[in-house]
């Protein structure tokens, strides 16, 4: 890999999410590669956990498909190794899988981070691990050179926000609205308010939760985001392909074109941004 997470946000970034192994190992490889081909700047690759409490029904179903096709943490790392993409990868998973990985007699968490680093993962995002509980994981990420990405919710503010900003690296995942993941068609006021609260913090801000079209992406970037994270809208394509028995290539093609649309939207959004004074 040549691009790093730090570089990825030089221009407005498109950050897609897919669950690794959805609906099976081989197709999933093609799908992730299609996203890269479509212009992804960073890819959030889900490692499925049986109790995904932060996900909406779309991603929940993706996780079920992946688990049923035999995905495990070790298979996940093999998946990453098998991927042929030149895009920084972020592992998105839940804390119990990180905690349980590796032989019984080692320090919990270390084996996971070590293996992730080994396969070339550049960052980790853990929806059920708030900053307060992140010391251990943070420590190992530092040690192995991974970024630990936090999610900032519309309700995150004040002291909590500050503490989080101290620890964050790579980028912040700005949750566009309250609730769980899932594609929606409107842009939330909460996004702008959250972005406003983050002004002055020198870290890229990627906005996710509910973005599904190029127009959305454009609007979000115009509102000041450094990138857009898109999950459910892409997973919907995978799900439909799976259900209708579509050829992998055809589904991959659809993913690629939605990716291209979203990336284009993000870029267009930058043009619409009010130019900072004095530039």
């Amino acid at each position, binding site marked *: 890999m040549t691009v790093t997470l730090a570089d990825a946000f030089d221009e407005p970034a498109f950050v897609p999410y897919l669950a690794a192994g959805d609906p099976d190992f081989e197709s999933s490889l093609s799908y992730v590669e299609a996203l890269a081909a479509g212009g992804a700047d960073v890819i959030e690759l889900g490692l499925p956990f049986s109790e995904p409490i932060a996900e909406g029904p779309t991603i929940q179903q993706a996780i079920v498909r992946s688990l049923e096709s035999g995905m495990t943490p070790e298979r996940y790392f093999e998946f990453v190794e098998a991927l042929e993409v030149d895009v920084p990868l972020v592992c998105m998973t839940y804390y*119990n899988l990180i905690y349980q990985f590796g032989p019984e007699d080692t320090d919990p968490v270390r084996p996971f981070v070590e293996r992730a680093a080994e396969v070339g993962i550049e960052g980790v995002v853990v929806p059920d*691990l708030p900053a307060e509980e992140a010391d251990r994981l943070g420590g190992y990420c530092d040690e192995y050179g991974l970024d630990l990405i936090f999610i900032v919710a519309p309700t995150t503010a004040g002291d909590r926000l500050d503490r989080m900003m101290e620890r964050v690296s790579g980028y912040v995942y700005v949750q566009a609205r309250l*609730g769980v993941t899932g594609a929606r068609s409107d842009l939330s006021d909460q996004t702008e308010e959250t972005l406003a609260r983050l002004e002055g913090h020198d870290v890229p801000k990627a906005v996710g939760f509910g973005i599904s079209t190029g127009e959305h992406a454009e609007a979000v970037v115009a509102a000041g985001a450094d990138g857009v994270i898109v999950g459910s809208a892409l997973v919907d394509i995978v799900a439909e392909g799976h259900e209708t028995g579509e050829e992998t290539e055809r589904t991959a093609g659809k993913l690629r074109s939605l990716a291209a649309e979203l990336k284009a939207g993000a870029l267009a959004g930058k043009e619409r941004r009010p130019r900072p004074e004095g530039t």
Partner: protein
Amino acid sequence: MSQPDTKFGEYGGQYVPEALMPAIEELTDAYERYVLGNEDGFVDEFEARIEDFGGRPTPLQRADQLSARYGVEIYLKREDLLHGGAHKLNNALGQVLLAKYMGKERIIAETGAGQHGTATAMAAAHLDMPCEIYMGRRDINRQRPNVFRMRLNGAEVTPVDVGRGTLKEAISETMRDWASTVETTHYVIGSIVGPAPFPAMVRDFHSVISEEIREQSIEKFGELPGAVVACAGGGSNTMGAFADLLEEDVSLYAVEAGGSSLSVDEEAGVAPHSASLSTGEEGVLHGARTKLLQDSHGQIMESHSVSSGLDYSGVGPELAHLVDEGRVTPAAVDDDAALEAFHRLSQEEGIIPALETAHAFGFLETVAGPDGDGSVELPETVVVNVSGRGDKDLEAVIEETDKRELENAPRMEVFDP
């Protein structure tokens, strides 16, 4: 009431999506002010309502036939007499009232056996709050009367179709709802599980059970009991029955569901039991680090028990800690023994217990019955927490009894005369 514990040794904590953290901070604050600090007379109002609406104190009753059978004094703490038919109301009423003090406008909750759901629906109706209950599809089918009761109390009951459709999935689903609605909504969690401050707060609402056990024991037999036995799903009735006695010389037994066997089918991701204290390993589930049933990768395993209310892959972090410390002794009672104990209590004491509760009585028989293994020597007086009544379980009991050859069951064909 005690200090706001967020960790119990290594267990506990707040492993939740960021979106929920502010709500949890707000709740922690409210817990400290109202519950621990009695601000605005919260505790007084809670105590008055749990007496008048709930029917506290519940009696501590000598079980004449069981005492004769086991050769020690068996006393029953009658939480089955609480309004709604289980201890669950202590917590549900406490939390709904707290939500009201916090200015929340809506209540959500998950339920397994339906007892927490009915308790919450009752409390919400009593306090005039809209209420939505998530319940696994499978549990809905197992506990139909409780679904009816929730609906009659004006609550919405939303089926959860994910996974096996039991408590675990219902909790996840309720957390998802909460993540979208935290500002107006309070999530009334149903046991001493979930992120802090829930485990401590739920325990506090239930600790009236052990406070009463203390007082009533002294009144009835002049000293504290030698042991307290309670069944443990999440562990709320257990911690409620233990909380005030932790510092005393009282043996504490937490009886889990042994299901059909304590072995595990890793391949299928299914544990045929729910014995997280006895067999589980440390992990993170539903917001807390605790003991839980998981496969070698850390995926949560589906649990099993004949009683929906014990059918859960995790357990309260405080209880997990007390077991590690050696303060609480875990035990597992299997489906057969629980059913057998169910029939014994019904016939010999005239109390039809919840199937959950029956596990606690199965423990007595397992250690001290005529064919007991003698693994535990019962002290002179034993209090068993009768966490709930069995009306909700009638159909399940008939079906499960029919499958087995239980010597002490009434002939079931006569049930349909």
